[in-house]
Structures are given as C-alpha cells and as structure tokens.
C-alpha cells in the first residue's frame, strides 16, 4: 500500500509540478496568479491539515464530495509535493540555455513541440537531484496517510503493535523498511539520471 501510494502520488506530483511550473512562467497574468496561489497555499499549510481537509471537510454538506482514503492520500500527497516540485521545475526550466529557445524559433518549431522535445528533457535532467529529495520526502510523508485510516505500513505497524505488544521489533522493522525503500528510490533516480544524461557532454565546469 505504501509503495502504491508513493508510486501514484509521485506520478501526480510530477505532472502537477510541470503544469504549475509552466503556469508560473506563463505570460498570461491569470494563469500565473492561479499557479502562484496553488503553490503558496500547498506549500504554506501542513500536509496533515490538507489531508484532513480533503478527507473530513469535503464529504460534509456544502461540498458532498466523498472520496476513498486511498484517493485522498494520492491527491493530497501528489498536490502537496507537486507544489514543492513546481518551484524545482521552475528553476530547472529557467536553467535551459537561451540559445536553445532561439534555435527552436529558428527551426520554426511549434511552442508545444519546443517544450516537449527540447526544453523538457533538459529541464528534467537538471531537476533530478532536488527531485530525488522530494520523492524521498513523499515516501516518508506516506506514513501520514495512516492517520486517515488507510492501511499502509505505518498503520499496519500500529495494528500489529496493539495485537502483539512486540513494540520494539515492530517499529524497528518498520523504520528499516522505510529506510530500504528510500534507498531504492535513491538508486533508481541515480540510474535514471545516468540514462537521461547519456550523450551529454561531460567534464569541465559547465
């Protein structure tokens, strides 16, 4: 369950990060303000508060939107980490050299193609190291979804503890499992980075 939430949550986070970063950099003021509001609200409030808001407030009378704990977990985590990711992506997109944009213009590429084929691959590469941090953050934050009654690793640990009273073993093992999962993410991202940076000129201080 923890792995599932992490996986879908990070997918949503990456998508919302890219969309929000684009909105933030857009030349249309309305879009820009929308993106800034999204980023500031989700970065400014606590994740747990957001999860509770989605889980307890939305089903109440004025909204009447009922979601399963699983959906709330993915939505809350994805949007929360996505807001942080948006700032990372913004820096990454801005770091793509200006000459690349000019070259695209010279080749008469459409803006969509320019972003998808030229800017995004370079920006993603630059965003990987801080992105890894955020993904590990996301993994650790999945432990919070146990508080909205989703039976993830942390929730199971509590249950087992109440059933067996082998407190030390259970929590030590849980800590170890999270640690291992974090290392897996670390390793995967490093491999991804190597894959993405293939063919890129290395060396020097560039």
């Amino acid at each position, binding site marked *: 369950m923890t792995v599932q939430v992490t996986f879908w949550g990070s997918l949503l986070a990456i998508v919302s990060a890219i969309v929000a970063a684009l909105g933030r950099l857009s030349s249309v003021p309305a879009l820009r303000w929308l993106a800034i509001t999204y980023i*500031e609200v989700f970065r400014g409030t*606590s994740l747990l508060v957001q999860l509770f808001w989605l889980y307890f407030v939305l089903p109440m009378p*004025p909204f009447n939107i009922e979601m399963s704990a699983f959906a709330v977990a993915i939505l809350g985590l994805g949007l929360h980490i996505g807001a942080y990711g948006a700032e990372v992506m913004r820096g990454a997109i801005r770091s793509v050299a200006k000459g690349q944009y000019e070259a695209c213009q010279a080749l008469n590429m459409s803006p969509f193609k320019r972003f998808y084929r030229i800017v995004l691959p370079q920006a993603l590469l630059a965003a990987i190291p801080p992105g890894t941090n955020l993904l590990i953050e996301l993994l650790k934050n999945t432990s*919070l979804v146990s*508080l909205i009654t989703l039976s993830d690793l*942390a929730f199971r640990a509590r249950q087992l503890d109440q059933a067996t009273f082998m407190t*030390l073993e259970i*929590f030590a093992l849980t800590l170890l499992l999270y640690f291992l999962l974090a290392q897996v993410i670390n390793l995967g991202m490093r491999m991804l980075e190597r894959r993405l940076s293939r063919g890129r000129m290395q060396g020097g201080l560039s």
Partner: protein
Amino acid sequence: MNLFDWSFAWHILPDLLRASLNTLTITLLGFAIAVAAGLLLAIGRRSRHLWLSWPVAGLIEFIRSTPLLIQVYFLFYVFPNYGLNLTAMQAGILGIALHYACYTAEVYRAGLDAVPRGQWEAVTALNMAPLTAYRDIILPQALRPILPALGNYLVAMLKDTPVLSAITVVEIMQQAKNIGSESFRYLEPITMVGLFFLILSLGLAWFVRRLEGRLELAPR
C-alpha cells in the same frame, strides 16, 4: 445550511488559539534543541576519528530517510517498555527535535565546508584548541551564510507539528479534530487551522527573506 458559519468560527477561535500556543511551544523548543544538537552532529561527522564520524553519519542518514511519524511512535511506544517514561509532549518535542537536528546537521556541514581551507590551516598553525578554534574562528564564518537555510527548516518544522497529534499531543490540529467530532462541523475548524499555518509560515518566510537581505548587505 451556510457554507461557512462565521459565528461558529468565532465561537471556536479561543479554543484553537489556546491549542496553537502548544504548537508554537513545540516548534520553538524543538528548534532550539535541533539547532544545538545539529551542530554537535555536524562536528561529530567531520571528526577525524572513524569510530565517531561513521556512526554519526549513519545515524544522520537513517533518521533523514525514515518518517517522522514512525520515529515519534518509536519514542512514545517503545521507550516506556524500558522504563523511560515520556509524556506525549516530551516525546513529541524530542522526536521532532532529533529529526530536524539531522537535517540541520547537513546544513551546518555545508556551512563548515564553505569556510576557506586557509582558515582551517591557520587554526592548526596557531595551535588552537578545537573548542577555541570552532568558537572564535570557524563558527562565526560558517553560520552567516546558512542562517536562511536554518530558517527554512524552522518553517518546515512548524508544518510538521501536526504529526504529533498522532501521539495524542493536543496541538492545534488535534484541537480542530476534537471540535469537529463534538460538533460534526469540520469545515470551519480545519479551514481555520489551514489559514493559521498559511499565515504563520508566510510570515516566517518573509522574516527569513528579510534576514537574508540583511546578511547580504552586512559588511564583510
């Protein structure tokens, strides 16, 4: 039914504010501990003695890559079995402080690494005791550039305090949930808690940014 019941919101405001004092106490006390312990951890990690630097490095990595929630559970549910009884509040402050001490240790490390090599060599050449060297020469130079980064962790810490509601610390989130379960109105309390965090963290972020500007202007 109204979308947002203002009189109800007004009615629960004092309760929430009282609980918010707990949130602030945890944040400030925890941050004070984290800043001090982080410095010790960072210096320990730089130590020449492998028996000191390796375990410290391992501890920092381990705590940084496991969730705060489980660590707090560990403090609150495991330690009493070994005779160390902590109240929820103590366990909460200790847990969050240890967690963030490991983050600030990394920040300190960046600051210490940024001190020019010549300074370290000069300290050695002058045969200073490690304590004097750190206190008079190294730390004043290392601390200035990392103050903004430390401030960011203060904001992050503030936003992590609701996690402690899981071990029955009555901070503002727990209070909001209690109100919700008494009155079956969740919209107002939880929205107000969200606003509380938003205002406080925006305020702190603004403060950190001002500090940053101040420090850059300061003559070297």
